[in-house]
């Protein structure tokens, strides 16, 4: 039995799905949203908080279903988690089997089947509201040159790795404003313009953000006092360095029924009071129109079309429920509409599309053979240090400022740019504090690298040590611009016998950081030394080439060799002092990277149907009533966190769908 026909079927209730649903339902369109994960009622936040409190591992996914130990072969909606990439899940002989059917992480633990050569380290949620349950809130606009990298920095270089977007920043200014108002972004436009207009940050004339900015932290202000308005940084000669308050989707005032941020220092994994916007806020707005039907716990298994040039005629899906210790699923159902929107992010969307066989050996929306390619993240270089004075981290939102002024510059011809996020959570991200250091100073161990003497402290001496230690910790996170690569990709393999609890194939991931990307790590290390020199701070960053699995030492999959030892050789001696250097090494052997949680690429937009999956409105080149939305369309990831831009693109897509449906509300 088929559902009644809708104007629009939207697959996925994360960021883009609810925004498009709200824009179109306000205009009168009848919409069905199909969400694979469970619906999240407001009371779920209490349940999720309890999960967070009681989990020993407080990773981004720790509050949410299914639980961290869940078997990806049994669950209906398993997803990638950080815990799946813990060292203990790496087979000791992982390197020997890559390329011959082996994976970096044990497929009995890891939902993603990681074929390497390097691991993809980001994760996501499959619940209503999607990964915004555990997003940070950072809402940065892209810069003018971000959209035109090839023509700006690589016009004369046939091997330049970064393409142009099919749109320019001016095409998105109005949509950025709408997205910022939907999310409720707190920032001061005059501050943003003063600090960043010279690197191409743009706003519509007279624009103002919907809420006043979030105040910078003591940490931020300490860094700013030392580094602001200097322009003689090695590798960034002539470029101004300035700490800028970060626009954030976090309430600086009451917003509807949601409260003002209370600085819980817990945006990730979960804001206890929903002061941070998430997709459920916009979803509720869409549902309030009365024009939106939500079907949760329904996983779409196929998008139906007769061929390229033909419309999509339906989506097949199954409803699932947890029964006993397994999953029960319904018969396959079909939903039909005039327009189809797939909003299941950069891994589940290409997985679904590659599952959507058209019966002729081709899959839907893939005449370009680009579906699933160009998977990107912001590989993150984490640098952590101790200040000479107390700066009182572990207070306020997880981050309130960053060094954004180096996100653009002529160096982008040769090496990756980054933004530098300043953390307010001490060494929590870096080494798992306060747990790690408390154990060290009680047991006499030295996992933190700050108890070489093996002190076993108690009483007043323990308090004094921990106070001094925790209140001087801070870290920088460098979000490095990763290049799109055809072979960094999502595929499926129906022959490997590895499926989820619904019997669907699991995403196979190939992933590698290019030389251009790796060079951004070297420049981040050089930059961090100069910051520490100005602050009198000591660098404690570790980049470990090997890790231990049990008692066995193995190659660390997240480590790679320093791509530019010459740039370190050439540094002045003052920047080679061990206290300033990661691992204490003047010339680093190599670097390690983290994921940033940013799943980007895999169905890129472009101006040419032969080399891109969608046009600049996120419309499939192959099926005019199919839109693939979200940050999977980004041709390049740039240096900014992707959510705001994908929300702006969802506004742009909404306008295109209105026009296509002939709606003029």
């Amino acid at each position: 039995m088929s559902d009644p026909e809708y104007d629009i079927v939207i697959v996925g209730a994360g960021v883009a799905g609810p925004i498009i649903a709200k824009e179109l339902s306000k205009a009168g369109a009848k919409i069905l949203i199909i969400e694979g994960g469970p619906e999240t009622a407001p009371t779920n936040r209490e349940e999720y908080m309890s999960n967070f409190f009681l989990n020993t591992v407080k990773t981004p996914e720790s509050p949410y279903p299914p639980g961290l130990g869940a078997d990806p072969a049994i669950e209906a909606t398993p997803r990638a988690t950080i815990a799946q990439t813990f060292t203990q899940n790496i087979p000791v002989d992982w390197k020997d089997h890559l390329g011959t059917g082996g994976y970096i992480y044990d497929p009995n633990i890891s939902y993603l089947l990681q074929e390497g050569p390097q691991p993809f380290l980001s994760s996501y949620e499959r619940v209503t509201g999607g990964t915004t349950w555990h997003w940070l809130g950072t809402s940065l606009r892209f810069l003018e040159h971000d959209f035109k990298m090839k023509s700006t920095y690589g016009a004369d270089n046939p091997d330049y790795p970064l393409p142009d977007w099919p749109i320019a920043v001016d095409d998105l200014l109005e949509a950025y404003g709408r997205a910022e108002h939907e999310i409720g972004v707190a920032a001061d436009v005059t501050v943003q313009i003063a600090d960043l207009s010279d690197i191409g940050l743009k706003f519509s004339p007279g624009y103002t953000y919907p809420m006043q900015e979030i105040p910078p932290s003591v940490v931020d202000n300490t860094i700013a006092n030392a580094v602001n308005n200097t322009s003689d940084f090695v590798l960034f000669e002539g470029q101004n360095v300035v700490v800028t308050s970060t626009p954030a989707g976090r309430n600086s005032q009451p917003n509807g029924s949601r409260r003002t941020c209370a600085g819980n220092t817990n945006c990730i994994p979960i804001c206890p009071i929903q002061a941070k916007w998430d997709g459920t806020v916009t979803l509720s707005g869409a549902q309030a129109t009365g024009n939106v039907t939500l079907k949760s716990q329904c996983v779409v298994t196929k998008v139906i079309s007769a061929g390229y040039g033909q419309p999509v005629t339906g989506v097949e899906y199954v409803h699932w429920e947890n029964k006993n210790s397994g999953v029960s699923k319904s018969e396959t159902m079909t939903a039909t509409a005039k327009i189809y929107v797939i909003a299941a992010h950069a891994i589940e969307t290409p997985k679904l599309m590659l599952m959507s066989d058209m019966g002729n050996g081709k899959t839907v929306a893939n005449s370009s053979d680009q579906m699933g390619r160009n998977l990107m993240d912001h590989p993150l270089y984490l640098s952590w240090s101790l200040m000479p004075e107390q700066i009182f981290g572990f207070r306020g939102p997880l981050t309130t400022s960053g060094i954004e002024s180096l996100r653009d510059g002529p160096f982008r011809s040769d090496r990756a740019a980054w933004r530098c996020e300043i953390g307010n959570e001490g060494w929590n991200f870096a080494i798992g504090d306060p747990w790690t250091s408390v154990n060290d100073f009680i047991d006499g161990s030295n996992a933190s690298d700050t108890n070489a003497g093996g002190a076993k402290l108690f009483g007043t001496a323990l308090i004094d040590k921990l106070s001094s230690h925790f209140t001087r910790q801070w870290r920088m996170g460098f979000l490095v611009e990763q290049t799109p690569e055809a072979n960094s990709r999502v595929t499926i393999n129906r022959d490997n016998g590895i499926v989820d609890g619904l019997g669907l194939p699991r995403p196979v991931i190939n992933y590698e950081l290019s030389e251009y990307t790796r060079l951004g790590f070297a420049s981040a290390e050089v930059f961090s030394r100069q910051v520490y020199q100005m602050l009198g701070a000591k660098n404690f960053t570790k980049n470990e080439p090997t890790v231990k699995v049990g008692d066995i030492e193995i190659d660390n999959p997240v480590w790679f060799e320093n791509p530019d030892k010459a740039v370190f050789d050439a540094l002045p001696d003052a920047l080679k002092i061990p206290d300033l250097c990661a691992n204490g090494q003047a010339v680093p052997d190599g670097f390690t990277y983290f994921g940033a949680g940013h799943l980007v690429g895999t169905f890129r937009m472009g101006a040419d149907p032969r080399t891109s999956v969608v046009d600049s409105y996120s419309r499939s080149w192959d099926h005019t009533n199919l839109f693939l939305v979200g940050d999977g369309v980004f041709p390049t990831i740039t240096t900014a966190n992707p959510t705001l831009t994908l929300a702006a693109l969802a506004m742009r897509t909404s306008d295109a769908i209105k026009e296509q449906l002939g709606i003029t509300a």
Partner: protein
Amino acid sequence: MSISDQDAFNALSALLTGFNIGLIAPRVDPIGLPPLFLTTATDYSDGECANLLATFVALKAIDPALTDDDLGGIIMGLSPDPTTGVLIAANQTLVAQAIMKMWYLGSWYQPFEITGFKAGAQTVVSDQAYIKGLAWQSMQSHAMGNSTLTFGYWDKPPVASLQDFTGNSDVADGASPNPTEWGATT
């Protein structure tokens, strides 16, 4: 009059954590962490928690002149028990350290293997154990995910002093900068 196990546990906890006993074991206590922590330490230590408390009570009884530093050093296995001339049993020290971590972090770190639990296994004792963890107090803050403050508090240093947060007037508030105490290998 003999001291109860709970009183001994509270006194030992205050001595080892450095926090005022009135803060960690208030007379009127709607949360009740001390009995929960004593039960946890008892249930997961094969009798060593009781042995530790007996050692502590005995030390205090035998030599009232022992200072908190003396007692802590003996319990932590840093100096010998003056009555025997040797260190106290290693498992008692391990339980003492596990009790300290429970107070600071809200988690029980299994100190040695017992039936069904390997050494090093962790569990969060309760949501309140996490929220009230003393580690957060030592940084003059709040548990991550449980702010007790209001918008914008983070743009200034903490209002309350470390003495206020710990109830310990001997702590060095405003820990002085001293790069030689970084403690790392160089």
